[in-house]
């Protein structure tokens, strides 16, 4: 019986060490919060540009916030590299996934915003390959993929459920034909990215403090 207890304790010990080590290399969630805020600012700029029929400064705002966001991501990746923090295979896949989807979403946001400006100025005849109103639903679907894969890699049901939120929201946005898609998308960003990001960040701070 005593031997059995020892075996049980040993397995528990292994489990705890693995859990602690993984938690130390997990993403803190801060980048989700920062990128979420960036997108909310950009998308609300699009909204106000749309309702005021003035797209003169929209691209500059997007340019500024995207450069800031990518600079933050670059510095943050460099910091992790400097600390020689180990990586799990899952984290590698996750980082690659978010970089790839981030680049895709940046391209979509820029291309569609340029198109909005052109729609108003009538420089180029309409329609184009991608409808301007597709900016928010397409980004929602991409976020759905990223959240689903991230949730599956980390075996986290909460993150996987966020993907369903993005996909359902994406379907709703596809059927909307007004500038209201922007504040709705901003709300989704707050609910499905910024708030969960804050939750992950707080948990990661507690873990690193050893609580």
């Amino acid at each position, binding site marked *: 019986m005593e*031997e*059995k207890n*020892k*075996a*049980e304790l*040993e*397995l528990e*010990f*292994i489990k705890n*060490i*693995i859990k*602690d*080590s*993984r938690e*130390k*290399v997990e993403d803190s969630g801060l980048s989700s919060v920062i990128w979420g805020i960036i997108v909310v600012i950009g998308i609300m700029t699009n909204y106000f540009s749309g309702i005021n029929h003035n797209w003169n400064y929209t691209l500059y705002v997007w340019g500024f916030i995207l450069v800031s966001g990518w600079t933050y991501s670059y510095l943050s990746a460099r910091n992790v590299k*400097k600390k*020689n*923090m*180990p*990586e*799990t*295979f899952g984290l*590698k896949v996750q980082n690659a996934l978010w970089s790839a989807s981030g680049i895709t979403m940046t391209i979509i946001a820029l291309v569609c915003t340029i198109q909005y400006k052109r729609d108003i100025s009538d420089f180029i005849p309409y329609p184009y390959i991608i409808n301007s109103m597709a900016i928010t639903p397409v980004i929602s679907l991409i976020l759905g993929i990223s959240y689903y894969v991230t949730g599956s890699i980390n075996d986290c049901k909460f993150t996987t459920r966020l993907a369903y939120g993005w996909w359902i929201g994406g379907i709703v946005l596809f059927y909307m034909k007004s500038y209201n898609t922007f504040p709705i998308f901003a709300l989704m960003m707050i609910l499905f990215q910024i708030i969960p990001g804050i939750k992950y960040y707080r948990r990661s701070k507690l873990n690193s403090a050893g609580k």
Partner: protein
Amino acid sequence: MPESEFDYKQLDDIIHSRIRLAIMSVLISVEEADFNFIKQNVKATDGNLSVHIKKIETAGYISVEKLFVDRKPLTKYKLTKKGKEAFKKYVERLERMLGR
């Protein structure tokens, strides 16, 4: 279940030590780790950790890579295939002891 199945002598001697088991568990959870990361998770002194790492390395369970990052020496440790198999066997044996 026969009494012999609870025999601890069946367990791998190299892994069957608190610190060495912790080192192996850290390295199974990440792809590779430096000395400080292992120390932080194992909570052992430098000297003690070095001795145990050497023992696991001699058994061929981990590989060691010494390099320089920003002109500072850095030692990275990684589980070898043999090490991964030994760890897997160790855990399986423990589970068998518990009748899982």
